[in-house]
């Protein structure tokens, strides 16, 4: 579980996050949603330690991440996997080398054990046999799946996904969402997903936090979305006329 308490972040005079308190629960897909510029990416980068908060606390289970020194942060990061928006696969390495990189760097496994683990992860994301391909030789959806395989190879306790469906077609997006959801449940991972994708919200939103102008505007789950009276959430979720019609047809408010 990850708990953030009164997190604030400023860049110069601009306060991007204005004191956010929220729990990201283990074994659930925790979504951070909001319009562009709401502070989602900043919050995600604070959670993984790429930015330091101006004030506030970030608790990974019973450890305050903010107070750790560089080496202690590195130890926590061994338990963290992250899927980047652009996948961030290393271009000069094959799919197998990309997935094996964290194992090569940190594990004491034999070559055979590493290969078995890589093959298991590839199988888990339905990419058996793609070991020797380079990232440039596979599609965007496959790159995302390789990114997921790499992020779970060290069996993380915490998984972060930054816009996992950006640039993907709706069908592939569903595959990625389902994959993240099933991995989260299987391994009881605390998964935090930063997304704009309304389909993800409605399909895998176990714990949804809406950010608006650096503040937490709404918290709930996918079942609460259609019933909400929160105007900010309604404006965000049903921004398109098409979805507004669908919601009305479904009997939502």
């Amino acid at each position, binding site marked *: 579980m990850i708990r953030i308490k009164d997190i604030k972040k400023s860049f110069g005079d601009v306060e991007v996050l204005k004191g956010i308190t929220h729990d990201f629960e283990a074994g659930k897909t925790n979504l951070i949603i909001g319009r562009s510029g709401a502070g989602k990416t900043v919050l995600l980068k604070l959670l*993984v*330690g*790429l930015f330091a908060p101006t004030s506030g606390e970030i608790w990974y289970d019973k450890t305050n991440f903010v107070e750790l020194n560089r080496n202690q942060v*590195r*130890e926590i*990061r*061994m338990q*963290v*996997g*992250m899927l*980047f*928006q*652009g996948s*961030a696969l*290393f*271009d000069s390495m094959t799919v197998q080398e990309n997935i094996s*990189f*964290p194992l*090569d*760097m*940190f594990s004491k496994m034999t070559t055979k054990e590493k290969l078995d683990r890589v093959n298991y992860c590839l199988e888990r994301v339905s990419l058996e046999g793609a070991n020797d391909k380079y990232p440039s030789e596979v599609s965007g959806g496959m790159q995302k799946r390789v990114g997921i395989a790499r992020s779970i190879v*060290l069996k993380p306790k915490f998984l*972060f996904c930054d816009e996992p469906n950006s640039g993907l077609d709706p069908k592939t997006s569903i595959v990625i969402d389902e994959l993240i959801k099933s991995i989260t449940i299987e391994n009881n991972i605390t998964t935090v997903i930063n997304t704009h994708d309304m389909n993800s919200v409605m399909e895998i939103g176990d714990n949804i936090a809406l950010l608006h102008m650096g503040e937490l505007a709404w918290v709930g789950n996918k079942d609460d979305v259609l019933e909400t009276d929160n105007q900010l959430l309604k404006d965000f979720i049903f921004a398109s006329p098409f979805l507004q019609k669908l919601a009305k047809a479904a009997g939502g408010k």
Partner: protein
Amino acid sequence: MRTVFSRPEKFHMYYKETIRQMNDIGIGSLVIICLIAVFIGAVTAVQFSYQLSGGLVPRYYIGYVVRDIVIIELAPTFTCLVLAGKVGSNMAAEIGGMRQKEHIDAMEIMGVNTATFLILPKVIAAVTVIPLLVAIAAFVGNAGGYIATVPTGLLTSEEYIQGLRAFFIDFNVVMMFVKGLVFSFILTTVSCYQGYFVKGGSIELGQASTAAVVYSSILILLFDYLIAIVLTQ
């Protein structure tokens, strides 16, 4: 700088990366370095023979001057200036590209000390390989002087070789290696710094690459002067 030289996580990964960098810097630059060195030696020999023509200085002095000027100055400085352009800009672009494509963030989140992993192998490879390239450049430069003077009749083979052997001072070779070592350290650290801290998009990446070459070149020339003062006093 202290982070760069901190303890590697996994020795064999750093070893593999260092060998790859040695290959890229050494083998990848050998042809251009030899090509430049042969012309440096040739031009030095031809111009010095022009200045000596009709004078009282023995002609074998051409070989002597080519040898010393190539070993002390031209081989280390020219080689490292060329490598600042070729290798330095490449390092800045490679690391800067990784920064922009979030590869560095990805490694950081995995727990990798990115400053060490991305920079240390390059520094070790450069300070090992570039002094060797400088030595090869010195040898080829002297051969270039021979090619430019002996077949054209400016000197006989015996005169040039007599010049190469005359008044030889071992310390000049030490000076050449000191320069090679210092210049290679400068060009890698400056270039990696420019790439590692790049911000923005492709324009900024280009600017970082250019800055890597410009700052490396200026520092190489500055340290060339300082080393000359320190080692010749």
